[in-house]
């Protein structure tokens, strides 16, 4: 099956403001891409366009075998198909508070994939083990630390076996002590060659896991290339000052 995310001349407006300007871009299978850029540059918007939480006005977006012409209304069927090929992890976790940890993880398999409960539970237990939370299966999200909640959210995303995993600042809401445990999980996933697109402000982490860096500014891609090239051999003054300013945070 085709395993790709492709943007062709994608433009997204918020009112008058162009949040993404004519973006051409392809994400490949097995690659970890980190998206960097100053606040308001369009990182979240780009990520949220992939699974159509935002609908751009122009261009085409392909996810796997689904291709969408954004100048026309998007059918529900295509929207759902795209969302089944992707999974998203949010800055604020967004776990379902009324469901226990295991129920959170298997919800998509039960409701969306219509899997039997027995199979879904088995899958859910394995994933919770993978993120180190086997002990917390019967807890409610409110009983967990932020880092634990985010690991549950990652397990929930993995449970859907998506082609692409999308992360929007997955550790920005966490204290530094808790950040590490989530980054560790992300690193493991990256090493398993999962296809991941990560928005983050953590440059050290980007440097460590990214195969590829995208640098956005004012809704445009200013840099798209290998990680080493971004950090070491970059002659773009804007990027150099960005790297410098981030290192003090």
């Amino acid at each position, binding site marked *: 099956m085709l395993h790709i995310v492709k943007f062709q001349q994608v433009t997204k407006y918020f009112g008058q403001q162009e949040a993404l300007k004519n973006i051409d871009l392809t994400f490949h299978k097995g690659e970890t891409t980190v998206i960097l850029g100053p606040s308001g540059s369009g990182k979240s918007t780009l990520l949220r366009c992939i*699974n159509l*939480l935002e609908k751009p006005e122009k261009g085409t977006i392909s996810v796997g075998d689904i291709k969408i012409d954004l100048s026309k209304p998007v059918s*529900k069927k295509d929207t*759902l198909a795209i*969302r*089944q090929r*992707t*999974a*998203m992890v*949010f800055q*604020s976790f*967004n*776990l*379902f*508070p*009324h*469901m226990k940890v295991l129920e959170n993880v298997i*919800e*998509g398999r039960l*409701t*969306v994939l219509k899997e039997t409960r027995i199979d879904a539970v088995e899958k859910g237990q394995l994933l919770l083990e993978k993120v180190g939370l086997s002990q917390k299966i019967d807890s*409610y*999200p*409110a009983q967990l630390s932020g880092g634990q909640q985010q690991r549950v*959210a990652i397990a*929930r995303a993995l449970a*859907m076996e998506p082609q692409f995993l999308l992360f929007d600042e997955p550790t920005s809401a966490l204290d530094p002590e808790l950040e590490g445990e989530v980054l560790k999980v992300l690193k493991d996933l990256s090493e398993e060659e999962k296809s991941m697109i990560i928005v983050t402000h953590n440059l050290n982490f980007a440097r460590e896991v990214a195969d590829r860096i995208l640098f956005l500014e004012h809704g445009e891609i200013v840099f798209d290339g290998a990680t080493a090239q971004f950090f070491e051999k970059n002659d773009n003054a804007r990027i150099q000052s960005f790297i410098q300013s981030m290192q003090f945070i």
Partner: protein
Amino acid sequence: MSREMQIALDSIWPILKAGLIVTIPLSLIAFAIALVVAVITALARISNYKILRAIFGIYVWIFRGTPVLVQLFIVFFGFPKAGITLDAWTAAIITFSLNTGAYASESIRASILAIPKGQWEAAESLGMTYWQVLRRVIAPQTIRISLPSVTNDFIDLVKGTSLVASITLADMFMVGQQITARTYEPLLIYSLCAVIYLIFISVLMYLQGRLEKYASKYV
């Protein structure tokens, strides 16, 4: 035994009986219908369909914006002029379910809107349809959030049913009026009515507390 004591004792059962055969059944039936109306109205008013939002918005506007006694009179005394004659029970059920439905729809709508947008986004990004999101993620949280205000709407309804005395239904209040007319003991009899209402509503408040505790076990 004093005369007042005797009157009070003799009046308890007739008033209570009116409560059991009119006030309580009317409240329960009207509330059950009101809940259905309220859920449909709340969903219509958060939907993407402008016409639907407008129609249900006008319904809520009218029923919240006019006194329930006036609504009751229009349905019971007014509708016959337009060829629709309803018995007192039917008129009362229609009026109270639509009136409480309007209020409860606002309670439910506000509760749905209080749920963080991230809940919708997380569910949608799993690939759930609109109805799946509503059923699996939004509804359970809405029930918890709206419980206190919807119970309030129910309590208002129970008390509001005392108005059916004016359209010939023999509820607790009507029976109280009849006994007062016979005995000239308004303070005694109406206080007795008040106490019985208070007992009914205290039971509701107790149930609300239990339900809230149950619905909040995950917070």
